[in-house]
């Protein structure tokens, strides 16, 4: 059985590397991109992405919150994990089935969530 694929969206290279290693170590395949536009390009090209793990604050006009809303709208089956150094903005409804982690996050909790979503 092929490994489930997780798309990591994070503009900070060090944090992207960290998230990629963490998720790969847990037995998943990772594709990593630095912004939302690149993420959407991947999603439009491939149909095998199961989970998107995205940062919120990113350059390029589409932040992680908008990206998550777009994914929920265009690719409903994909699971979404959102992470940020800021608190979740008040008054904004998180997309259905999405999970939010404040940064820095506990690796074991993120991995538990990914495993549950992939199951």
């Amino acid at each position: 059985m092929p490994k489930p694929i997780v798309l990591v969206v994070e503009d900070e290279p060090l944090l992207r590397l960290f998230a990629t290693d963490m998720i790969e170590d847990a037995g998943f395949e990772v594709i990593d991109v630095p912004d939302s536009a690149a993420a959407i390009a991947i999603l439009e090209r491939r149909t095998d992405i199961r989970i998107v793990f995205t940062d919120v604050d990113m350059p390029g006009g589409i932040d992680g919150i908008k990206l998550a809303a777009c994914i929920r709208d265009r690719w409903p089956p994909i699971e979404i994990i959102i992470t940020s150094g800021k608190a979740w903005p008040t008054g904004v409804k998180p997309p259905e089935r999405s999970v939010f982690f404040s940064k820095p996050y506990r690796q074991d909790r993120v991995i538990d969530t990914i495993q549950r979503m992939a199951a």
Partner: protein
Amino acid sequence: MVLDTPEEQAFDDIVFIASQACDAPIALISLLDNDRQWFKARVGLDVAETPIDQSVCRIDIEDGDLLEVVDLSQDHRTNANPLVIGERAFRFYAGAPLKLRSGEIVGRLCVIDTEARPGGMNETQKVLLGALARQASDHLELRRIARSSERIAELQTALVEIGESIRNSADVGEMTHTTSQIIGRVLDVARAGFGMVDDDVRHITIERDWTAPGVASIAGRHQFEDYGAIRDHLARGEPLVIEDVLTDERTAGNPTAMRDIGIEALVNMPVRQEGRTIAVLIVNAATRRIWLPEELTFLRNVADRLEAGVSRIRGELQQEMLNGEISHRLKNMLSMVQAIASQTLREIVDRKPVENFEQRLMALSAAHDVLVQKQWADADLRAVADAVIETVGFGDRVRLDGPAVALGPRAALSFSLILHELMTNACKYGALCQEGGHVEMIWSIGDESGQETLVVRWRERGGPTVTAPTRRGFGSRLIRIGLVGTGGVDLRYEPTGVEADLRASVRHLAQA
């Protein structure tokens, strides 16, 4: 003003004496207004007022002298007056001015006869009429002072009320709305509101104004130029006071712009900041209105208070944004530390120390979250405890109880690290490592050697039998540093469970 006030005995007495002394059937105290004269007291006449163009009293009023017309039907100034040629047939008139101490002349005390008096009044009558007019003026003055001081007291009370509501407001909108409401009520006007102006003071954006019942709101963006030559005053920071938009030179050119939105008189009071007009307090009246000096002073004071209130809220907002930004960067920095540590320690086979490190970082981050919510002021002990326990887990087996305690930023961070060590220790070796074990953390404040002291008591129960560790690890040393960095920690490895008492003076906790 004394216009339209009920009759009073003192004024009635004066007109009665005047009529007797001057042997005239009619005597009046006539107060002059823009469009009419109104009789404060009268004998021998059955009307309370007449249009101003029928007034004899107003003739030569600015001279401030006794006016005597021995035959009104023969004088060119009065021979067409309806009161003279009509059935009332006034013939003789003598009136002494009512002069206030300020020099303002408000009307006349006059006597009227239906017979002409070619010889006029005798000297005694003239002196008497003058003396009675001074009496009447004094009464008017006293009434005016009494009314004005009553008004000042009323406005003072409103100002206090406004000051309080400004202090208690959390945002500019709330502040200006309640202020407008109070202004509207106390000045009895049609509309009151507040608007921020753009940089060159050409437009004003009025938010939620207050209006009297039946008066439309003018909330929205307006251009000053559309309402007359009013912009320059406001830009210079001068109050714009208009008693009648029809006659005021600044609005007379196009009074319909004002009248279309129900304004006949107005006060616009600029609110300044650093030498610039940043906002305008607007007060509109639906009838012509003479704004009293005390009312204008009141509005000036309100504008000053609003100015202070607006800067306070702006300062707070700015601080909040700055705090949010600093916090965001700090959290990103903690994430970077976590990433670097994780990458650096990747090759280490024993994952325990790596996990320990990461979890301590989490505890620090959790305390930081609580502090950010409180704007880096005091964090509550309970809130910090909840946040730290959440990062570790097992919250359902830890009972917390105690009063609200304010922790300063440093104390909050120390406490988060200490609690984290106690929690992880309990999870690995203590009460939380087996079924049925639980922890109580109870805190209280009491007096210890004259100092208000916080004591936090950590009690583990129901775990395996405890033996003291042979070596002091970093964790237990971290705990012994204490809440404010000066110890005050009693850590005991009782066989029934770990116990710890943490002590610190409440004053130090809040300052640290």
